């Protein structure tokens, strides 16, 4: 005997619905009343202030007069503040230029005054001093530049050592790259859909090792924007058994299989990928609640 839970549950609840219309009507009446009260409370104070038309007209006239006066005064103040300094400045400039023009010849004669002569003498002696100082400074300058060269040479050595470090690093990287399974890398890269960051799903490549189960990720392909992987179970299960996994943007993958044994073996297990990343397997139930799958995700430390 099989009964439909969803249908029966819905039917039972809906058959048990009480008549709520009376309550709703009463509630709406209350709501309308409170709204009316609110509105009337808003209107009352305005009505209380209503006065005879003539008074209002007089008051309005006075008010307008005051507003006009205030606006005229403020405009005048602004004009005064803005234009007076500008006008003064303009006058000063005009008169200043005139003064300059008028004593232009005087400026020439100013150079010949004793004060200015002294000034030029001082300036000339300063210039001499400057030249002497420059001569004296030449030696330390070259010393400094010599030091610079030494520094440069040292820097060159450092750079060389850095270069050599980089070379070593490059060599190490190269070795590491050589260590990596080239064929798998190629096929894996080819399988990643366009626009998908490589790092997002790179942790799931290779072998996933649990206590009793060894999974090998064989093929990665994209179906409707999701990375679906076909994985071979290498240990404890038939070697030819394949199942697909969904990879949700590198966060987790759902291992789908009809084999109940596989779920039981995987659930609550820790998997380690061959690249050393630790993955945790948990139970996942789909939206129907009836299909459960092992959910693999990155273990948070």
């Amino acid at each position, binding site marked *: 005997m099989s*009964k439909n*839970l969803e249908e029966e549950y819905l039917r039972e609840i809906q058959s048990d*619905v009480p008549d*709520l219309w009376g309550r*709703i009507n009463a509630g709406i009446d209350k*709501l309308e009343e409170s709204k009316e009260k609110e509105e009337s409370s808003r209107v009352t104070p305005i009505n209380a202030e209503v006065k005879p038309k003539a008074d209002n007209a007089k008051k309005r006239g006075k008010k307008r007069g005051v507003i006009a006066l205030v606006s005229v005064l403020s405009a005048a103040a602004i004009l005064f503040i803005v234009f007076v300094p500008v006008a003064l400045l303009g006058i000063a400039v005009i008169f200043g230029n005139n003064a300059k023009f008028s004593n232009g010849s005087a400026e020439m004669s100013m150079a010949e005054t004793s004060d200015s002569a002294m000034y030029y003498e001082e300036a000339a002696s300063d210039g001499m001093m400057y030249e002497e100082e420059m001569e004296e400074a030449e030696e330390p300058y070259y010393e400094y530049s010599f030091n610079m060269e030494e520094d440069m040479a040292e820097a060159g050595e450092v750079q060389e050592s850095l270069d050599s470090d980089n070379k070593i690093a490059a060599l190490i990287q190269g070795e590491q790259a050589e260590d990596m399974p080239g064929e798998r890398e190629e096929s894996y890269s080819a399988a990643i859909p366009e626009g998908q960051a490589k790092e997002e799903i790179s942790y799931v490549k290779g072998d996933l090792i649990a206590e009793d189960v060894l999974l090998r990720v064989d093929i990665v392909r994209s179906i409707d924007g999701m990375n679906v992987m076909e994985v071979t179970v290498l240990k404890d299960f038939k070697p030819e058994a394949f199942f697909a996994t969904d990879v949700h943007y590198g966060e987790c993958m759902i291992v789908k299989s009809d084999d109940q044994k596989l779920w039981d073996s995987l659930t609550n297990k820790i998997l380690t990928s061959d690249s050393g990343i630790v993955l945790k397997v948990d*139970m996942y139930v789909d939206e129907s*609640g009836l299909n459960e799958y092992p959910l693999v995700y990155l273990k948070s430390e």
Partner: protein
Amino acid sequence: MEQSRFADCVKKMQSGDREGLKIIYEEYVGYIYTVVYGILPSKEDAEDVTSEFFIHLWDIKDRIKTEDAHKAFLVTVARNMALDFYRKNRAKEYLDEEMAEEPSGENIENDVIADVSLKEALLSLKEEERQVVSMKILSEMTFEEISKTLNCPMGTVTWRYQNAIKKLRRYGYE
């Protein structure tokens, strides 16, 4: 109810005619009550929130958009009202009820399948299991939504649902 009929009802409501609301009420009270009941464990609370829902619908009659799918709109409003009610009262009442609830149905898996009613079958569930089943089936919520509402991890929610389904299967419910 068709969208055009719903639009007519809203127009009636906007002109102050309660007949428009009554038509919507008669059409959807069962559905709305079910959605609310799925979230609120108490029948009385479900009735209160359902009534409040229709009063609220009257209150917002001028703002209802009649071009959009009205059923989704009604469910969303009802669900939000029920969730608000649940959140406000959860700390006070529901938690106590859940704590007081005896862990029933532990031996259900060993019981013989009997011809029992759904009510009896549901009684075999723990309150938190029944709640997840109700939210899922009656309120049409996703596990993620349930997890957020109950403020507990999704794994716990799915685990409760799984347990509930396993128990109900013993009574022949699929």
